[in-house]
């Protein structure tokens, strides 16, 4: 009897096969989750090359790491936490080299603009310009929806420190994106 294709497997069956290091199962997990993990890695590192390296590391170690996944929560949430840890470890290990998009050059504050929140290039540039410690909290809280308790666990800081960093990040973004304030 032919084996079912990985795309037709349930998540737990897929995880079981990936734990056995099946290349097909890894490829299927990549198809299902890699874009979300790449987005998170990119937002945290601010660099496509770094994000690809993070994604590579995650999938390279996934079969072994999955043995510690207890299947109590959603797989993608667990994968995201792992990815965030890998990305943050990478950032801590070496200074981040930021990419600046060609069309994302910093623009001078223009008091005639009430807000630049509709200009996504400006939004990206403003987030990119945040200090790394503030940027990580902003990304995890405002984009990924982590609680301050979860962020404190990921960043090894207190929840109060996470709240303070978020406040500072928002203040900095507001200064950049709403120049009249």
């Amino acid at each position, binding site marked *: 009897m032919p084996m079912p294709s990985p795309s037709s497997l349930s998540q737990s069956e897929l995880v079981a096969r990936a734990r056995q290091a099946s290349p097909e199962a890894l490829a299927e997990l990549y198809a299902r989750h890699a874009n979300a993990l790449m987005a998170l890695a990119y937002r945290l590192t601010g660099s496509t090359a770094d994000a690809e390296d993070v994604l590579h590391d995650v999938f390279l170690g996934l079969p072994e790491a999955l043995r510690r996944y207890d299947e109590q929560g959603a797989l993608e949430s667990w994968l995201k936490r792992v990815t965030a840890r890998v990305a943050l470890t990478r950032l801590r290990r070496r200074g981040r080299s930021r990419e600046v998009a060609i069309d994302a050059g910093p623009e001078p504050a223009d008091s005639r603009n009430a807000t630049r929140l509709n200009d996504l290039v400006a*939004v990206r540039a403003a987030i990119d310009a945040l200090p790394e410690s503030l940027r990580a909290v902003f990304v995890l809280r405002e984009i990924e929806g982590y609680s301050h308790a979860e962020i404190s666990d990921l960043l090894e800081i207190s929840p109060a420190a996470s709240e303070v960093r978020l406040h500072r990040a928002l203040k900095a973004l507001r200064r950049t*994106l709403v120049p009249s*304030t």
Partner: protein
Amino acid sequence: MRRFLFHPSAAALGRFAHGEASPPDASSTAAHLLTCPRCRTAVEFQRDVSAAAKRVDVPSAPPSVLARVLAERAEGVRAILPTADSHRRAPTPMIRVAAVVLLAITGAALAIRAVDDRQSVATAPADAGADSLFTLHDLFVSAGFLPGTAYASELPARPAVPPISGIDGTRLRPTRVMFESRWVDSTGRITVDGQGRTELSPATYQGMAAWRIDYHATMRAPEDGGLRVEAETLWVRRDNLAPLARSVHVSPYLRFSQITIRQRFTGDSVFGDMNTDGGVHRAFAQRLPSAYGPYTTDALAPFFLGAVELGPSWRGSISIVGWAVRSYDVLYSSTLEVTGTERVALPAGPCDCWKMRIATAAGTRSYWVRKSDGLGMRVRVDAAQPGKGFREFIITDR
């Protein structure tokens, strides 16, 4: 309700912005936001920048990364990942038991609360207390255009069709119309149980070009059959008809001789307060998710489609903002679709109309919109039992 002597903390505003504040904190923060532009702006900015950040393009995962992973693993390369749980101690059996018990209690409480909420919507008595005040309102269009409040106790499903687009409010012209609410029984006998007028006129609101809509009606209250006066004044932006501010006044209302709801629309939220002559006061702040827009209100609804170009296959979605005092009366999502054309005989004279279908989570109804100016001329709501008659709202004079 706790009131802030000073500004809420940044953390409290953040929890409010994310909808994570406890009910007492949410209530006190909402009350503070009503009177504090600084904190209101902070909340709006946090929501806006969060939404914008999520829209920023990110690169996709390239296939080359997977190819590299598979090739390296085939060569025996491995990596040890810092998994989420690897550095934590496993919970003790006692902690696991406590967590399970807590989860069960919380889950049960939430389930009971959910059932309570639904029951209060469906069975609120006419003399219910303040918490049931907002289950029965049935302003002009809410009664005819929409099916009632019960289904709004939860956020409705996202509209299946795209939002109404191409809104150009400058197409509208100052208009004043009279209307009637009628019950037509199976023999064709007409009983008029409400009438009123609504007027659209140019205005400015806080220096901005706007339309002002004044609506006034006398209707029979469904609770006791008594006459009730309903008035609404609404300001919307002249260009895209986005609501700016609104005041609703109903007299009498349930056990009160009058109730007033004031709303102000800022960013993606509606803020306001409710007052009755019985001393019941409540401040509120509700979010209007962009996925359900555009938004309008009862008073503007008959004029709204005059701002878009209707055609034979036109369709779009829109939401009507409720009183927004309670979380189940914030928005009513509807899909409108042109199904044909029809010449309709009305008290104001015959007119060529687009015949439309309005679909909501609770059912459909028919709507006739005048071709020449997009004015809503008639809404028909059939009785639940076929052939038992229908209710209609019609324009009687212009």
